[in-house]
């Protein structure tokens, strides 16, 4: 891991990885969306409405995985002062926020025809909305710190503390009575989604994740390029 602490070495790996992730992600996503929209049968209870699952579930996963990645880069910044950690945190936040928002929007659209409501303040919906607000707070804090020339330590602390919301989101449907149903897929109990309906989900999950990674790498590269440019401008101004 620390071999890639060097931004030059990171860039050497990130440049080809971006294209590959983007290409593979787009292919998997196209296959998953096609399967989910045209090939799988409708649900016995919800009918065609169930197809929004193939977007909603990956969006929820990436909204949470995005913050888990921010927390990981926060730790690596606070403990090891990893030079790429703050860059990674700032690159991740808007991407994660977009997926958290997508999860909330698709959930709302799904909730209206199935539950009969756009929004309810139950444990799962509320904790997911808090995650979205945490993203907005992190983005504001990290960019304010960057403008002041700080190392982003406050943002890292915020990223770490905000991670306590992740188990709350995950266990909300177990701990509390909620309108949102319990989890359909678990390691211990397998899947309660029939195989006929399930198969496009891993495709869109991995596809969205690859695109998430590609966009994050692009943002990290852009940030590193900007830092390089700023350093060069400072040097030429000093001469």
């Amino acid at each position, binding site marked *: 891991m620390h071999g890639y602490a060097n931004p030059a070495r990171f860039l050497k790996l990130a440049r080809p990885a971006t294209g590959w992730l983007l290409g593979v992600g787009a292919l998997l996503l196209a296959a998953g969306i096609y399967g989910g929209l045209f090939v799988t049968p409708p649900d016995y*209870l919800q009918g065609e409405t169930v197809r929004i699952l193939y977007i909603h579930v990956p969006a929820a996963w990436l909204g949470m995985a995005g913050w888990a990645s921010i927390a990981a880069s926060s730790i690596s910044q606070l403990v*090891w002062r990893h030079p790429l950690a703050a860059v990674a945190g700032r690159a991740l936040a808007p991407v994660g926020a977009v997926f958290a928002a997508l999860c909330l929007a698709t959930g709302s659209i799904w909730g209206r*025809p199935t539950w009969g409501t756009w929004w309810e303040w139950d444990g799962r919906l509320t904790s997911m909305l808090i995650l979205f607000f945490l993203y907005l707070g992190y983005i504001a804090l990290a960019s304010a710190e960057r403008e002041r020339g700080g190392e982003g330590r406050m943002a890292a602390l915020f990223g770490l503390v905000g991670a306590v919301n992740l188990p709350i989101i995950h266990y909300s449907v177990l701990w509390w009575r909620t309108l949102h149903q319990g989890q359909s897929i678990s390691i211990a109990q397998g899947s309660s989604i029939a195989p006929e309906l399930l198969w496009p989900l891993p495709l869109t999950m991995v596809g969205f994740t690859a695109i998430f990674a590609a966009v994050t790498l692009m943002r990290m590269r852009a940030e590193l390029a900007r830092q390089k440019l700023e350093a060069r401008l400072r040097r030429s101004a000093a001469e």
Partner: protein
Amino acid sequence: MMVRPKHQRLVLLILAVTALIGAVLFAMWGLQDRAAYFVTPSDIAAGKTAPGKSMRLGGMVVKGSLKRNPDGLTIRFAVSDTKAETAVVYRGITPDLFREGSGVVAEGRLGPGGLFIADTILAKHDERYMPPQMANQ
């Protein structure tokens, strides 16, 4: 010793995170009752709810209990959590997924005689998804 400050930061961080997780667990444990989105028929039977106060009632619609009044709009049904039952009356349009044997959340208040007067009906479905042919088997 070059690694000292690094180790110190790591130990501090682990302590802080442990304390934080502990605090959150305590808070969530304390919230358990208050964060519940609905009450159950058992709660009502145990007298944990105040009559006339607005609340949400959740459970399963008892099979065979759904009756429609001649006006076509008013329905009566029983909600069960397998331990107790509460009778519900509602006037209005129900969501498509509202049906006998399925989950329901009713917003309203407890009227005289233990009858729950609902203003809103929400359908609660479970975590299973399957094709129609499989559900018929």
